[in-house]
């Protein structure tokens, strides 16, 4: 039995905010199945009581004095944005559009 179906691939794609063509979705169902089959080999490993590693070098959370410092110039910070207004990022209307779910 397939490990994943088309509806699940589409659900994941929406979570990742990526829209897929029909062709892409079909191909991904097949590829996911082979990847998941491969990655499932780790289920053989006995990890009872083993702490997970999030970072290879464990360091205490670094702290620094809370002092005011110069920030990046606002104009420079928005210079790469596709659309701006003053020193802000402009986005399509968020509230009151049908497309939002």
């Amino acid at each position, binding site marked *: 039995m397939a490990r*994943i179906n088309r509806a699940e691939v589409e659900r994941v794609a929406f979570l990742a905010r990526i829209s897929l063509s029909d062709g892409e979705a079909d191909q991904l169902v097949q590829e*996911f199945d082979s990847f998941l089959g*491969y990655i499932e080999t*780790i289920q053989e490993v006995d990890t009872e009581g083993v702490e997970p590693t999030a*970072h*290879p070098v464990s360091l205490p959370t670094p702290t620094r004095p809370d002092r005011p410092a110069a920030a990046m110039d606002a104009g420079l910070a928005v210079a790469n944005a596709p659309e701006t207004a003053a020193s802000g990022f402009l986005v399509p209307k968020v509230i009151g559009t049908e*497309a939002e779910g």
Partner: protein
Amino acid sequence: MPEGVGTLHELRAALDAGETSSVEIVGQCLRRAEASQDTLNAFVGLRAEAALREAEESDTRRERGEVRSPIDGLPLAIKDNMVQTSEPAHCASRILEGFISPYTATAVEGLERSGAIVIGRTNMDEFAMGSSTEHSVNGPTRNPWDADRTPGGSSGGSAAAVAARIVPAALGSDTGGSIRQPASFCGVVGMKPTYGRVSRWGLVAFASSLDQIGAFAQTAADCAWIFEAIAGHDSRDSTSIPEPAPAYSGALSGDVSGLRIGLPKEYFVEDGVDAGILAAVRDSVAELERAGAKTVEVSLPHARYAVATYYAIANAEASSNLARFDGVRYGHRAVGAKGLTEMYCRTRSEGFGTEVKRRILLGTYFLSAGYYDAYYRKAQQVRTLVRRDFERAFEACDALITPTSPETAFRLGEKTSDPLTMYLSDIYTVSANLAGIPALSMPCGSVGGLPVGLQIFGSALDEATPLRIADAFQAITDHHTACPGDFA
């Protein structure tokens, strides 16, 4: 084509002897980069004017006796995923088209502070996701040894540029082997240091717990100079190691007598790797034994789970990191979207290439409700076991030697239609990233006219031992001096 450039050490000596100038060297590199571009496609952009201006400044410093470091005035290339003020950084992706960086990466700042000169940016797999430099919006980079083959990846442009003697050295990044595998395919030295040794500030994130900046050069001694410029603590990277980086050049004693070299038995199995590669690596180990090193067999029992563990973790982290590319603050934005969600979805679909989408989706799946424990957490637990394997192995030895890759450079297009096969080409390299330990690849022979790489793992924080072994090996052998015929 203009003549190829020498090593950093050779160029330093020529500068100090007054035989050449930084302007001359940088000009030569730029002309060679242009002349080889149609064949190799190693670069995505050159900064000719700025580089020549900086070379003039370096020449003035030298005349005044104010040389800042051994690499002052010497040219390097950087991978397209490191930012430099007022320069583009596209990660070989459409989604970052038009991006001009407002700041400079710490590692690149280190080069600038040392007086080194960045001549251009090198091609890569999009967002460093790939093992062949074929997944690039700029088209594939080709291997200088055989233009029908890949240079490896993802730092394929940097590896090819050094192999073709366009630049003496280059920076790359290594998340699962992206420096070492291309170094192996192109016949140059490539090293990733211990995780946290070089700041990741200004390196576009792929998988934050695995990514590490490192260096390519023809020799280990040149790599040592680069690490002296780029390694060290940086408060802007919260995973940066607080201890100061050692003076690596000082560790290159040329002596390996008494060093204990571990050979992990899982990496020397006949059926998993090209026989010629195994023979070349074994011959090189014998060479080191003749020089006084001792060998000991060790075991890394979880090695066979490393690729699966790596792809679970790397894709999960990538899906989170790449959420920032949303068409709001930088890069590509889809036109004419009705509403924010549609804008996000269309921007990301248009902006990311197939491989990047595939990995984001897999990673999103691993992190999604109901699957997190089975994939992501489980992989993190196996990661602990992989790390412990290395800790145990290093109780019996000072460094480990393995092949870098089970094969030599494969043909363009050979693996693009089968992503899982492509992933398996990282089989010998990913463990170092999971464990966070330093690892380098150096040329140790050839099979069918293509270079073979030998990998040396060091224990955490000990870049010096792999560099010392490689340097000693290069003093008694000449594999590293082999130059691809078309670029000799």
